[in-house]
């Protein structure tokens, strides 16, 4: 399936064995430390987006199930996890980090199967970072008074956490690790299309002997998430997902006194100046938009390139795109995997069609896509004007819009001309210009001469309508503490 298109090298398929992970035919909800059937009895099928094969049946939690999970979390908070000394909490989290590392290959294969992302990414990014988040936050559990938030920060109680499908395990770790380190208990709602790695994580938590109820996992669709965030027993809501749903949650929580952090959409500008190291910049552009099929809220989806090098950069970019290998997510040679769902594929197609209709020039390398599953080729639009939909709306797919600029001031004006403000990139060899750009770009994360780097010690989160609050680092603890 990994069809070489650049004509450079033939690669023999190198698939990671599917047999590394055993998937059960069906999964219940993880409530109070055990897997239970839902009270209201619904289920959904989760599929492999690269083949459309059904992987498992997963329970859907109704309001009664959510209520049961929140009660279990409350009891665990009051009786066990809240009163437990921080240094004991820390050791549970260290233990979880270690167990994720031990079962890394299994988790990586499962993630690629359920999500469609290349095994190279789940193996080298998602899973190691998930373990690192637990390891980093474990050490905070008994040092919270040093976090600069006040002398005696207290946990908030029960956290309701709703996560997206693009980094299923990693987002679970981003949410759970700081919440648990701070002494909260959690009810986690994984995404409808990617529930499996969170359920395997639940098994790991159980094996790590985390006290029952400290983490509960309720699977289901949007209505499950809606009942979780609206549940009166939840003290804090953390959501990663679309800006539209983020707004709804904000409205739902108005007047409730619940604490809220939102990590929402983005439309990042990746700004390339004429003095940039162009080969590195092209790698950065590719990593910025084609990493994880562009299913990344901080994806560098707008390439702002200085006019004098625009043709050269676009030519090099196209040559590089011709060497990207699209296909079987489990193949270790694969660069671009499957689109996560047919719904997402429809959205990418619709916005790309709008780009063409609005006059932008569309290009994609010649590549043979697999017949089954959901696929979209890496695509670049040139001649894009800032008013077009493909320059304004989050596509959440492997689609790049190229816009040119002449001066740094113009680059900043165009980069900031968006309702989002999650991330940005800048490529130049000139140090003072980097610092000037970092200062003027209105975005929560700015990558200079790099892109799409993540670390548990590094605060992540947006300006403007990309949401509020930070995840990671000392700053991320604030979201889970009352100081």
């Amino acid at each position: 399936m990994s069809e070489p298109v650049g004509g450079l090298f033939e690669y023999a398929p190198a698939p990671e064995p599917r047999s590394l992970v055993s998937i059960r035919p069906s999964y219940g909800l993880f409530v109070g430390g055990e897997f239970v059937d839902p009270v209201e009895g619904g289920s959904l099928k989760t599929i492999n987006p690269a083949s459309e094969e059904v992987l498992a049946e997963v329970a859907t939690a109704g309001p009664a199930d959510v209520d049961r999970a929140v009660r279990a979390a409350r009891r665990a908070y009051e009786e066990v996890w809240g009163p437990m000394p921080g240094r004991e909490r820390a050791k549970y989290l260290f233990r979880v980090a270690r167990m994720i590392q031990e079962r890394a290959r299994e988790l990586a294969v499962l993630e690629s199967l359920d999500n469609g992302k290349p095994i190279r990414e789940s193996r080298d990014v998602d899973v190691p970072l998930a373990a690192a988040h637990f390891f980093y936050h474990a050490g905070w559990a008994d040092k919270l008074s040093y976090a600069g938030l006040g002398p005696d920060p207290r946990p908030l109680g029960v956290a309701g956490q709703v996560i997206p499908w693009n980094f299923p395990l990693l987002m679970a770790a981003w949410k759970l690790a700081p919440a648990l380190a701070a002494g909260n208990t959690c009810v986690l709602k994984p995404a409808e299309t990617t529930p499996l790695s969170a359920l395997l994580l639940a098994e790991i938590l159980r094996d790590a002997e985390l006290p029952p109820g400290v983490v509960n996992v309720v699977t289901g669709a949007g209505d499950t998430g809606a009942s979780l965030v609206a549940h009166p027993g939840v003290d804090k809501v953390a959501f990663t997902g679309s800006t539209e749903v983020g707004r709804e949650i904000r409205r739902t929580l108005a007047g409730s006194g619940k604490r809220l952090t939102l990590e929402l959409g983005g439309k990042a500008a990746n700004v390339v100046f004429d003095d940039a190291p162009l080969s590195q910049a092209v790698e950065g552009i590719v990593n910025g938009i084609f990493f994880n099929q562009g299913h990344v809220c901080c994806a560098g989806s707008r390439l702002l390139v200085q006019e004098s090098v625009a043709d050269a950069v676009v030519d090099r970019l196209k040559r590089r795109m011709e060497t990207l290998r699209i296909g079987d997510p489990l193949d270790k040679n694969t660069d671009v995997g499957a689109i996560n769902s047919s719904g997402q594929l429809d959205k990418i197609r619709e916005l790309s069609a709008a780009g063409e209709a609005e006059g932008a020039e569309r290009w994609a390398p010649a590549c043979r896509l697999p017949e089954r599953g959901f696929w979209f080729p890496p695509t670049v639009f040139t001649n894009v004007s800032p008013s077009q939909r493909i320059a304004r709306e989050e596509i959440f797919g492997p689609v790049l819009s190229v816009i040119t600029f002449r001066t740094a001031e113009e680059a900043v004006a165009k980069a900031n001309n968006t309702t989002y403000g999650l991330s940005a990139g800048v490529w130049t060899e000139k140090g003072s210009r980097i610092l000037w750009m970092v200062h003027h770009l209105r975005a929560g994360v700015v990558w200079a001469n790099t892109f799409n780097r993540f670390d548990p010690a590094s605060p992540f989160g947006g300006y403007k309508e990309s949401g509020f609050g930070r995840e990671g680092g000392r700053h991320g603890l604030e979201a889970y503490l009352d100081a």
Partner: protein
Amino acid sequence: MPDPRPPGGRLSVQKTYKLFLAGAFPRSESGRSYPVSDARGALLAHAALASRKDARDAVVAARRAQPGWAAASAYNRGQVLYRVAELLEDRHAQFAEAVAAGEGLDGAGAEAVVAETVDRWVWYAGWADKIAQVAGSSNPVAGPWFNFSVPEPVGVVAALAPQRSSLLGLAGVVAPLLAAGNAVVVVASEERPLPAVTLSEVLATSDVPPGVVNVLTGRTRELAPVLAAHRDVDGLDLAGAGPELAAELERASAGNLKRVLTPRGGEEDWWAMPSTRRMLTFVETKTAWHPVGV
């Protein structure tokens, strides 16, 4: 022959209490005003009754002024804020009289409020060039990158000043926003707006650039929804909103996902030493990465 002079021999000149917009003192564009009484119900003055259009104009002024204020060095902002404290002290007697009348305090009580206000303002002035050090960090990421986080002002913040504490509470809301580099549209205490107007006269004669602080007097209920729903307002301090109004405003703030500070359980104790919370709620954390190598 009767004495033609007024009682006391001279008629005093009364002040017209106006809005403070973009560094100027206009009346409400609506031409409206409303009576302001002292704590015993006697008429003190008529204040401008700001309209929704005035609120929108104030946001425009704040937006225009904010980049310049944020671009000033933190040291410079600190000095400007300290200058405000100097002028507050200078008008000690005038503020004490206004607070005594509006809040029904005796002379010593009102004096204490003004003194605490000046000291609070000085405290925040000193924060201007420290907040980035306290709220920023360099982050030990696992790889060859230099990674640091800095706080930046969120932009334009609309604040509902506390309804009861008309000077100390007002300062406790406005000063932290300024120290953090934000521009402010503040709606004064509805029934006790006069100290806010006098504060705007202090701001106008200090070195705070025009538009960095805009003061509206009028009906909180009328002005707040406009500000909460305004697409060009980035933050919302609900100190002066009751629980019911606060819930409505939080809902309205969802449109552009404003950063919102909602009081927890009634009006804050403005006499208590504040934490950094009022500054940190209205800053964004920006994190930058750069490779390390030769």
